[in-house]
């Protein structure tokens, strides 16, 4: 094992949160090293010829190599555990830029009540409203505190959208339920697909409030404050699970990484995999150990270790890094690492066949749709409902490629034959005549839902896989049933010739892709008794280790996570830059 030259800050991976820290800290004069398990890559040349759904969508070319490391799962603590051998439920990324290269760009702010969830529900409905066995808690940060960072992130990456609430004034055409923003979106919204227009009309007829999906994809050419010049979206239809060949999709490699590199104080070491955080006297972190490109172990000393390798890696590293001071892992002195693991609902609820129409849904991307928030969070009254929470309903995503869609046809409740001449004729006539309404909804934390180290299965580094114990609970089934009825009504209003609605939620399975929004496991809170870190992601019991990303979320709201984990990273990186090094053993307040 060789010992590398010490740096100020070492980050696990070079994904989006690591890139944000790198930009802010190098600007402040610190040197930052990102140790990234995957390859280096840029729009040019790496994404210039990737319009190959077999390689990128079906075979998961950009995802973490499961041959090397996967995650195991069981539905509950009594059930058997098996590893996820091939991709299913989620698609974490590897390579510079992380999953934020192949993300979909749906860019959200959370609602004000997402931040004080427990207090909000108890005040409005009383203590008994929250489901049994829950671990719901308020965030240690408010929407108001985060608003300036939301604003900066959205202007830094160029978010496209229709403003709905500008400083408390509700504006026509936007999301009337959004929290107040201090400036409008920097860019107008993206185009939406034909069924999305039909959807918006149907929603308005039913009294709902449709608006276009806010997107981390440029609707027009944009130059950011660092001078990155980027093209507007070409609607090519190869977006989620691909890198963007024209840099229209916001990715770390066309936003934060170039200015960080330009300082000369940022290094990315690709094809290198961190296997543990090293601990020294007094339980402080001294750096990390990683396996380099040649398969050799290397030691990397650093003053600060940033766990920024996505939810699963972050929790696994905390649990694997042990010393006499931390016998159960970093941050785990109170046994809280792995708790509050939550996920997200993402289900195609209702499908409509519009015979005779051809929607060209292979164009566009996964942010070219309309959305309603009328059943999000506590926007609607839950007094007479048998659940808390909600989510967004939207229709209909673009970039619908045949490999991922013909298999689910025909659209029928009777289980029509899905092979043979009849099926072929059906595909010919109807492949591109299908609209869907999708539900993305919140996921709550429970006592029997957590992450820990697998006692049997190991990764290639010889250390245990991270194990997920997770299934839906009664609140989820009740919420889904209610939402599915609403989706069914909207689809009916859209006027399809045939319609299929999945009325009940199936138990969770790890087989089907749902979303790459696993959250929690290293949550932030107000004190070491209720959380692993403070609001900056600083680990209570090891103050020179910081955690980033959605692992910090106490529970997961009903929209995608990145729009909020990025502003959190801004806030934490500034706190480190401006205040941490004066007193590196102190918890920041």
């Amino acid at each position, binding site marked *: 094992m060789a010992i590398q030259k010490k740096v100020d800050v070492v980050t696990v991976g070079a994904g989006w949160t690591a890139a944000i820290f790198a930009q802010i800290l190098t600007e402040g004069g610190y040197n930052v090293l990102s140790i*990234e398990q995957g390859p*280096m890559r*840029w729009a040019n*040349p*790496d*994404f210039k*010829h990737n319009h190959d759904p*077999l390689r990128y969508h*079906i*075979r*998961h*070319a950009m995802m973490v*190599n*499961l*041959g090397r490391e*996967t995650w195991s799962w069981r*539905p509950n603590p009594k*059930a058997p555990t*098996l*590893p*996820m*051998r*091939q991709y*299913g439920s989620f698609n974490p990324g590897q390579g510079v830029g992380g999953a934020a290269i192949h993300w979909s760009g749906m860019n959200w702010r959370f609602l004000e009540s997402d931040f004080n969830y427990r207090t909000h529900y108890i005040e409005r409905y009383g203590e008994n409203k929250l489901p049994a066995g829950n671990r719901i808690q308020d965030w240690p940060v408010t929407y108001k505190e985060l608003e300036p960072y939301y604003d900066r992130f959205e202007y830094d990456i160029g978010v496209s959208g229709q403003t709905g609430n500008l400083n408390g004034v509700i504006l026509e055409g936007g999301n009337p339920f959004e929290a107040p923003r201090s400036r409008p979106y920097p860019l107008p919204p993206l185009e939406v697909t*034909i069924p999305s*227009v039909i959807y918006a009309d149907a929603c308005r007829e039913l009294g709902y409030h449709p608006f276009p999906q806010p997107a981390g994809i440029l609707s027009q050419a944009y130059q950011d404050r660092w001078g990155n010049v980027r093209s507007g979206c*070409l609607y*090519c*239809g190869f977006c989620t699970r691909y890198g963007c*060949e024209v840099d229209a999709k916001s990715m770390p490699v066309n936003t934060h990484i*170039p200015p*960080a*590199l*330009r300082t000369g104080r940022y*290094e990315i070491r690709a*094809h290198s*995999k961190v296997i543990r955080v090293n601990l020294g006297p007094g339980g402080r972190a001294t750096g990390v150990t990683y*396996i380099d*490109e*040649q*398969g050799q172990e290397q030691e990397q000393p650093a003053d600060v270790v940033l766990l920024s390798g996505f939810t699963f890696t972050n929790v696994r590293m905390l649990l694997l890094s042990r010393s006499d001071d931390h016998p159960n892992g970093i941050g785990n002195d109170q046994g809280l690492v792995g708790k509050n693991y939550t996920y997200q609902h993402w289900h195609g609820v209702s499908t409509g066949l519009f015979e005779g*129409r051809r929607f*060209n849904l*292979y*164009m*566009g991307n996964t942010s070219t749709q309309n959305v309603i928030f009328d059943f999000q969070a506590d926007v609607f009254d839950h007094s007479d409902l048998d659940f808390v929470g909600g989510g967004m309903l939207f229709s209909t995503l673009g970039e619908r*490629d*045949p*490999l991922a869609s*013909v*298999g689910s046809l025909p659209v029928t409740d009777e289980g029509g034959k*899905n*092979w*043979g001449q009849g099926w*072929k004729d059906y595909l010919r006539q109807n492949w591109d005549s299908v609209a869907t309404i999708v539900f993305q909804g919140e996921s709550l934390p429970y006592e029997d839902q957590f992450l820990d180290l697998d006692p049997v*299965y*190991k990764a*290639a580094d010889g250390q245990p896989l991270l194990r997920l114990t997770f299934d839906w609970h009664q609140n989820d089934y009740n919420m889904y049933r209610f939402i599915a009825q609403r989706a069914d009504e909207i689809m009916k209003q859209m006027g399809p010739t045939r319609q299929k609605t999945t009325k009940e939620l199936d138990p*969770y399975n790890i*087989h089907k892709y749902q979303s790459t929004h696993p959250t929690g496991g290293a949550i932030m809170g107000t004190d070491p008794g209720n959380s692993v870190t403070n609001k900056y992601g600083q680990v209570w019991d090891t103050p020179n280790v910081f955690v980033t990303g959605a692992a910090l979320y106490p529970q997961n709201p009903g929209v995608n996570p990145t729009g909020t984990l990025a502003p959190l990273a801004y806030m934490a990186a500034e706190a480190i830059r401006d205040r941490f090094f004066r007193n590196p053993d102190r918890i920041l307040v």
Partner: protein
Amino acid sequence: MSDEKIPTEKPQSEEKPTGHEVTLLLMSRRGFLRAAGFAVAATGLGVVTGCDTPPAEESTGALPTETVPVRAQYPEVPYAPIVPPPADVLVFFSPHEAQTVEALTARILPGTPDDPGAREAGIANYIDKLMGFNEGFAEPTYRQAPYAQTYEGDTPPDQASPSNQYQTVWVSKDEIDRYGFQSLLTPREIYRAGLKSVDSFANQTAGSNFVDLSEDQQDQILEAMSKGEASGFDNPSAKDFFARLRDDTINGMFADPAYGGNRDMVGWKLIGYPGAQRAYTPHDIHTEGPVRPPQSLAMMHQFHPGQLANSHVAVPVSGTEEQRPEH
């Protein structure tokens, strides 16, 4: 972020290729190029170490220790070949197996020369070449034991019983689907065993091998398989093997023609999908029906003609213009 790249020809193997290396070697003979890192120093940017090399060609299947170059141990997803692999060179199937796959898939997506289906699209060729790479695992797969075995009823078999001499995780038959792909068999083994079971079931119920039956008889066999009612299938089950055939038929029919199926883009023409396009206008998005004739990867315009575009993706650097359809 410099555009400077050093094109290097991947060294050619002197050894005779074994079956499963053929696809990749074919690519390298045609000039499989790679980017040799990123020469960022020239523009005064920070340091970026670690460079890109083509995917490794071999996997051992078992979980190796990390003492050899990491990318040699864990193959990445292969790139599309530059030109479709030849249908008349089988890399995995025997001729009889290939004919059986062709006959099976031709019932899933039937066709005629005027209205092409799986046979005309070359699906058997697609699946044969899929089997040629890494035991048929096109995507990285976690392959460490113990594997699952299913049981019916309420209680799992005694863990210590002699039938559990191999380490096994017992999972209820009703629950196993929730866990996704859990087969101990490689895709190659799945095809080899599945095709054998198809023929023995065909012989048992109709008196000859699958390929020699009438289309109606073949349909009955597929029907029985799809419903899990065909006997004699053990591992893979009839239902699983049918699902596998159907999935691979879909993938071969609708993936880029470079993979050996979807010949002449017949799959895309069938459903009205224009394939690999670079751009659509807002007007296109709001238009119904075709706006563009289909285009494959090989037909795509280069971003920077004359300059290597994505140098580690297998595309011809020139000559794309002539292949583009008139429109």
